[in-house]
C-alpha cells in the first residue's frame, strides 16, 4: 500500500533529517563544551530568548544558505557540484530498512513499522554505504587542490578497508539470528533468555528451577559483545568522524576533501555526517540493542495485559507508541555514546587506522565467526 509507505517515509525523514540531525549539531557543540568545562553554544537568540542555544542550528542553516557557492578555478565543475549529493543521499536512503517499531496486527491488517523489509535488509545498507565513498573521493579530486586530493586518497583507502571488516564483524550476529532482515532480527530480540541455560545444554546436568528466573534480554550485544565493539569501530571509521577523521584532519590537511566547498554544498557534506550518526545509532540499536523491544516486557504481554481491560485495538496503539519511544531512547543513547567517543579519543595516525583494521579487527572478526559457529554447534545439537 503506497500511502502507508509514504507515511512511514515521512516519519523517518521528519524525525531523522529534519528534527534529529540539526539538533545533533547543537548536541555536538554543547557536549564538547560540557566535557571541556566551557559554557558552549548559547549566544544565538531571537529577541533575547536563547532556548539553551537551540537556535544555533537555525542560525547555521541561514548562514550556509546566504554564503557564496564558490567553485575554485580549474575545478571540474560538474563533479564538484554532484559530489555532495552523492555523499548525502546514501545516508538518508539507508534509513529505509531500519525498523522503528515491530509488527502489529489490526484484525487481519499487518502493520510493519519499517519503510521496507527486504529479505536481504542489511546487505542493502552495506551496498548503499559503499556508494557513499564516491561523494568523498570525487569531492576531493574535483576541487583541484592537493590537500583535498590527499584527503580523498586517504578516504578511499580507509573506507574500502573498513567496509571489509564491517561486513565480517557482523557475520556472527547473522549466524545467531539466522536472518539478514532487520525486521525479523527485531522480532527475535523481543524476548529474554536464561543466563544459566548454557550449563544445561553444554555440560548436561539440569539447572535448579529457581535459576530459570535469572534472565537477560535476548539482545545481540549479549550474544555478540565482541561483534558490537568491532562493528561500532568499523562503522564509525566509515563515517570518517574523529577519532577516524583522517580524510579531513584539520591539523594536517586543513579540511581535507571538502576544503574547497562553501555554503550549502559544504553544509551537505557536514549534514551527511550527522545524518549518518543517526543511521549508525539506529543500526546499532536494531542489530545489538534489541531494536524497539522493551526489556522484560514483550509485545504479547503488553497487548494481552492492557488489551484485557481496554480492548486489543487500544493496546496495540499503546504498544506502537511505547515501542517507538523505546527505540528513540536507545537511538539517543547511541548518539550520546558516539559523541562521547568523538570528544574523548584523539585522532589516530594513518598507519594506526590501517593496522587497527587489517591486523586487529580482521583476525578478531574471523576468530569471532569460528567461536560463534563452534558454540552454536554445541548448543543446538
Amino acid at each position, binding site marked *: 500500500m503506497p500511502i502507508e509507505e509514504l507515511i512511514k517515509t515521512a516519519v523517518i525523514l521528519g524525525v531523522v533529517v529534519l528534527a534529529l540531525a540539526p539538533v545533533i549539531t547543537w548536541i555536538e557543540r554543547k557536549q564538547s563544551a560540557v566535557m571541556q568545562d566551557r559554557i558552549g553554544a548559547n549566544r544565538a537568540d531571537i529577541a533575547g530568548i536563547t532556548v539553551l542555544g537551540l537556535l544555533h542550528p537555525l542560525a547555521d542553516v541561514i548562514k550556509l544558505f546566504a554564503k557564496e557557492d564558490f567553485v575554485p578555478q580549474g575545478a*571540474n565543475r560538474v*563533479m564538484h557540484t554532484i559530489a555532495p549529493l552523492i555523499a548525502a543521499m546514501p545516508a538518508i536512503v539507508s534509513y529505509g530498512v531500519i525498523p522503528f517499531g515491530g509488527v502489529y496486527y489490526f484484525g487481519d491488517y499487518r502493520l510493519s513499522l519499517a519503510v521496507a523489509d*527486504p*529479505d*536481504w535488509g542489511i*546487505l*542493502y545498507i*552495506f*551496498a*548503499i*554505504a*559503499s*556508494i557513499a*565513498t*564516491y561523494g568523498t*573521493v*570525487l569531492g576531493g*579530486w574535483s576541487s583541484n587542490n592537493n590537500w583535498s*586530493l590527499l584527503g*580523498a*586518497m586517504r578516504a*578511499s*583507502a580507509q*573506507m*574500502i578497508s573498513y*567496509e571489509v571488516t564491517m*561486513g565480517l564483524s557482523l557475520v556472527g550476529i547473522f549466524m545467531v539470528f539466522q536472518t*539478514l532482515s532487520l525486521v525479523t532480527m527485531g522480532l527475535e530480540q523481543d524476548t529474554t533468555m536464561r543466563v544459566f541455560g548454557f550449563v544445561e545444554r553444554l555440560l548436561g546436568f539440569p539447572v535448579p528451577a529457581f535459576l530459570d528466573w535469572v534472565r537477560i534480554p535476548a539482545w545481540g550485544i549479549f550474544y555478540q559483545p565482541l561483534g558490537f565493539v568491532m562493528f561500532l569501530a568499523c562503522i564509525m571509521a566509515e563515517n570518517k568522524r574523529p577519532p577516524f577523521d583522517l580524510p579531513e584532519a584539520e591539523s594536517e590537511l586543513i579540511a581535507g576533501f571538502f576544503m574547497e566547498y562553501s555554503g550549502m554544498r559544504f553544509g551537505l557534506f557536514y549534514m551527511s555526517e550527522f545524518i549518518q550518526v543517526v543511521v549508525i545509532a539506529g543500526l546499532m540499536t536494531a542489530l545489538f540493542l534489541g531494536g524497539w523491544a522493551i526489556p522484560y516486557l514483550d509485545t504479547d504481554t503488553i497487548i494481552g495485559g492492557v488489551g484485557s481491560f481496554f480492548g486489543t485495538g487500544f493496546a496495540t496503539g499503546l504498544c506502537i507508541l511505547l515501542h517507538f519511544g523505546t527505540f528513540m531512547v536507545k537511538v539517543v543513547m547511541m548518539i550520546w555514546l558516539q559523541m562521547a567517543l568523538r570528544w574523548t579519543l584523539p585522532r589516530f595516525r594513518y598507519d594506526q587506522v590501517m593496522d587497527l583494521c587489517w591486523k586487529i579487527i580482521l583476525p578478531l572478526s574471523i576468530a569471532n565467526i569460528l567461536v560463534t559457529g563452534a558454540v552454536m554447534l554445541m548448543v543446538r545439537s
Partner: protein
Amino acid sequence: MTVFSFLFYLFAALAVVSALGMVMNLRNTVAAALSLVVTMISLAAIYVLMEAHLVAAIQIMVYAGAIVVLFLFVVMLLNLRQDTFAPGRQWLVKSAGALAGLLVGAQLVRLLSSPLPELPVLPEGFGGYRMLGISLYTDYVLLVEMASLLLLAAIVGALILAKRKID
C-alpha cells in the same frame, strides 16, 4: 507496458549508454570510471528485477563500491589530467570496436528473428542468500575451494612483490 518492463528497459538503456560513455570517453579518466559505476548500478537494478537480490547487493558492494574505487585511487595517484590519456594506436581500438559491434549486431539479429523462449517458473527463495549459500557449499564446494586457493595464491604473491620493493 507494465512497471516491470518499464524499469527493465530504463535500466538496460542506462547500462548501455553509460557503458558507451565509459569506452568512448578518452579525455577524462575519472568520468569514464564513474560511467562504469553507473553501468554496475544499472546492472544491479536489473538483477533486482530478476529476483537475484544477493547478486545485486554484491554487484554494488564489490564492483561499484570497491573495485572502481581502487581504479579511481590509481587514477588519482597517477594524476592523469585531460588529454594525457589518448591511446597511440587509435586504428587498432577502432577496428576492434567495429569487430565487436559486428558480432553483437549478428547476435541481436539471430535472437530477434527467433521467438522468445518461455520464462521458467522460479522456485521458492530463488536468488536469496539461503538458496545461493546452500548450493555454493554443497553442489559447488570444490569450485569454491579452488577459487579460494587461487585468491590465497594471489594475496601471497602480492605481499611478496610489495615487500621486495620496500626492502
